[in-house]
């Protein structure tokens, strides 16, 4: 029944991917910006956690660092958007790609410079290595399960925010028609900055959790970006739950591939599934875009 274990692990991994994907999708939805630095920014948040955990005289469980990292990344996201990205948001795709690609390069290399290219890991406490035993051959790690639950909670909260709150409505209005939103009294510069802050905040949760779960290094950003992107496309743009589904499908594809062909094939199997879905149903599985 090992393949069942692979599937379950894949589903749980999907939760992690969803945490990365949601931010990418949110930014794209709100301001049509494809943030190529998104993956690297989540890696940055992992290193921020490393600093917080490592620097204090008290070495505490990295899970407690999550709220602090979230706040730091929210502020960083807001500043980045307001200070730089707001100037290129309305200027078309090319500038967005170039600038965010540039940011990606800068972050990747700055992290390499500051922390060396070596792999690191956030300290593992007791919780992280424990698992729930379901049967003789089936055990689910606590950590992956917590990550998945977190992903579900985050997405549910985000949906609530979008649908029930004043600012969430503003997000959706800006996403629909930014000029009309401005005419209604919405400060789009501020909204965009908040959106980026939220995107990085959510990404930080994923970033720290991933740093606890496995090793990380400065060059990981590209992979995270690609997995986030694939999750969004598989699940369908415009749908948060779709992103979770996309992440899950990607995770399952990767882990089944690893199980069947060996760990070196995991990523490639994920890509293959992505390609198939893109070819057959390019709008994604749960696509939900409205045209007026």
């Amino acid at each position: 029944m090992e393949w069942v274990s692979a599937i379950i692990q894949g589903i749980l991994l999907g939760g992690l991917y969803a945490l990365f994907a949601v931010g990418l999708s949110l930014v794209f939805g709100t301001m049509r910006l494809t943030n190529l630095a998104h993956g690297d920014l989540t890696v940055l948040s992992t290193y921020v956690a490393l600093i917080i955990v490592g620097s204090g005289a008290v070495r505490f469980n990295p899970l407690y660092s999550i709220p602090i990292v979230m706040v730091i990344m929210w502020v960083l996201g807001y500043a980045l958007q307001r200070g730089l990205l707001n100037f290129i948001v309305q200027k078309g795709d090319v500038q967005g790609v170039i600038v965010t690609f540039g940011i990606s390069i800068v972050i990747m290399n700055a992290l390499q410079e500051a922390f060396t290219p070596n792999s690191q890991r956030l300290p593992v406490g007791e919780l992280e290595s424990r698992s729930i035993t379901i049967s003789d051959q089936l055990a689910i790690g606590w950590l992956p399960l917590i990550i998945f639950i977190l992903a579900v909670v985050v997405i549910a909260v985000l949906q609530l925010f979008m649908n029930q709150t004043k600012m969430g409505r503003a997000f959706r209005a800006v996403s629909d028609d930014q000029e009309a939103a401005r005419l209604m009294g919405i400060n789009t510069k501020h909204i965009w900055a908040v959106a980026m802050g939220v995107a990085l905040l959510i990404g930080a949760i994923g970033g720290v959790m991933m740093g606890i779960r496995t090793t990380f290094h400065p060059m990981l950003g590209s992979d995270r970006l690609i997995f986030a992107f694939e999750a969004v496309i598989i699940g369908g743009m415009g749908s948060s739950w779709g992103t979770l589904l996309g992440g899950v499908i990607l995770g399952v594809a990767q882990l089944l591939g690893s199980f069947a062909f060996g760990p070196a094939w995991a990523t490639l199997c994920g890509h293959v599934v992505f390609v198939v879905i893109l070819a057959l149903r390019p709008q994604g599985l749960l696509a939900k875009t409205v045209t007026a």
Partner: protein
Amino acid sequence: MSLLQLEGVSVYYEDFQALYDLDVTIEEGEIFACIGANGAGKSTMLKTVAGVLTPKRGRVLFDGQPIDHLPPYKRVELGISSVPEGRRVFPSLTVHENLLIGGYRNRKGSWTTDGVYDLFPLLQPLKKRQAAGLSGGEQQALAIGRALMANPRLILMDEVSLGLAPVVIKRIYEAFPALLKSGCTILVVEQDVQHVLTVATHVACFLEGRIALQGAPSELTSEQITAAYFGVY
């Protein structure tokens, strides 16, 4: 002190000059109509007042205060609200949510969502419908209602009758008195001259970026207006 004043306003689109040294004064309580052919500059003036465009020369004064460099959202705070050309309702939001967005800046005043539904009863059954699924006339009513939710002192309407059946247009104009009563001055831009002249208290006829004719409709003959509209002298 006039509610809105444009002094020597010149507006450019890149190298193209759309407004030439415009002088316009609008008093509180007026229904001020701007008419003219396509490209005459009427919408440009409206966008300048709303804050979408910035004049290269001249000033825009609201209640005597210059507002030229205020972004649109600050102008909404001051009491300038827009019903944009093409309605521009938020397609993925419901009718009710569109109205709520109108009230984003929390300006104090008499308008509430209930008030809007009273004014435009056709919207009541559509409360939970996504705005994308509305007809032209329904969207127009929604756009106006949305603008009212900002409790404006000046409401800017850009071609509200475009593409609508006469019956619908009439219903929209019938709502004007209620707008005035709530303390709102109306600045309306129209290509359809006939209908708007029945409600306007003042009219300005635009021609190639300038005002060719101004006055109360009762004082102007239709020959004068036609001549000013088409630039035939």
